[in-house]
């Protein structure tokens, strides 16, 4: 299941209102990471952190806008510096919202077009497999992973969408006809320009055990653990 080498340290930031941090920690541990929770007031990441995950939930009650308050947490300064040095950062759902508010990922997540909270499995298309977040996927594969959000409608203006598309940054899309929230260009997940920060609305950490349905989430989180292991080995 995993490459050789010691378990890479993956930090999971926990904000007041995060509620998928434990699932993320459990999934990452299952996939061979040394997953550690980091409280939002911590000003630094654990020693030897090889990747950071911002989990889903409702940080700071989603007050003002989703992720708008969490981005100013002390831990986010450390995450910003880590990402600036090329560190791997994954934002899931609310974590994705935090990353867009922080300016680490392009676009913004708006209320679903239906105005309804959506909680169900969705079909996803992986557009690229040469990223640290999708390396375990095969080209053109369709994944089934649950979404659960009220504000997952990714938006960017048409010129920016065209630029991101041309640059290959729109890595994860809802399958044709499966867009649950009105996101432009069916975008479910976006990569930053440098390729080390990724955010997505679906929850891979809820899809790692056959008992609960799909195990497709393990392909995405497993890719991250593989990349974290390589980056940890390179740092030694």
């Amino acid at each position, binding site marked *: 299941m995993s490459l050789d080498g010691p378990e890479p340290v993956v930090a999971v930031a926990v904000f007041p209102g995060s509620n998928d941090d434990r699932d993320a920690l459990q999934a990452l541990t299952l996939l061979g990471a040394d997953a550690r929770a980091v409280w939002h007031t911590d000003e630094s990441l654990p020693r030897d952190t090889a990747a950071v995950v911002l989990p889903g939930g409702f940080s700071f009650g989603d007050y*003002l*806008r989703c992720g*708008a308050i969490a981005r*100013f947490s002390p831990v986010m300064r450390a995450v910003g510096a880590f990402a600036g040095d090329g560190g791997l950062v994954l934002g899931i759902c609310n974590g994705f919202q935090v990353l867009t*508010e922080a300016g680490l990922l392009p*676009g*913004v997540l*708006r*209320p*679903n*077009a*239906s*105005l309804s909270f959506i909680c169900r499995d969705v079909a996803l298309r992986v557009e690229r497999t040469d990223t640290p977040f999708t390396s375990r996927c095969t080209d053109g594969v369709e994944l089934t992973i649950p979404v659960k959000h009220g504000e997952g409608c990714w*938006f*960017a203006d048409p010129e920016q969408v065209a630029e991101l598309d041309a640059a290959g940054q729109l890595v994860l899309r809802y399958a044709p006809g499966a867009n649950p929230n*009105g996101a432009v260009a069916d975008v479910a997940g976006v990569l930053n320009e440098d390729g080390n920060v990724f955010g997505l609305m679906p929850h891979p950490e809820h899809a790692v055990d056959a008992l609960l349905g799909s195990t497709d989430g393990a392909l995405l989180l497993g890719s991250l653990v593989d990349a974290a292991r390589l980056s940890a080995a390179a740092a030694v």
Partner: protein
Amino acid sequence: MRATVLVRPKRGILDPQGQAVSTSLRHLGFEVGETRVGRVIDVEVEATDAATARAELERMCEQLLANPLIESYEISLEDA
């Protein structure tokens, strides 16, 4: 000094909340066109002169109160 900040979805940005409100108003028998929903934030600013207060509020809007990608804002100062 007291200030009121109005944050609105930018023109051309789809506002599903506004659409739901106008639909409901029509169901109630009101003849309305487009409805847009924004947010009002009342702020007490420590600054005592209007220029300083306005400059601070501009920064508050850019950094936190509005998301400039999708929202526009208007600042009005009381007694100014």
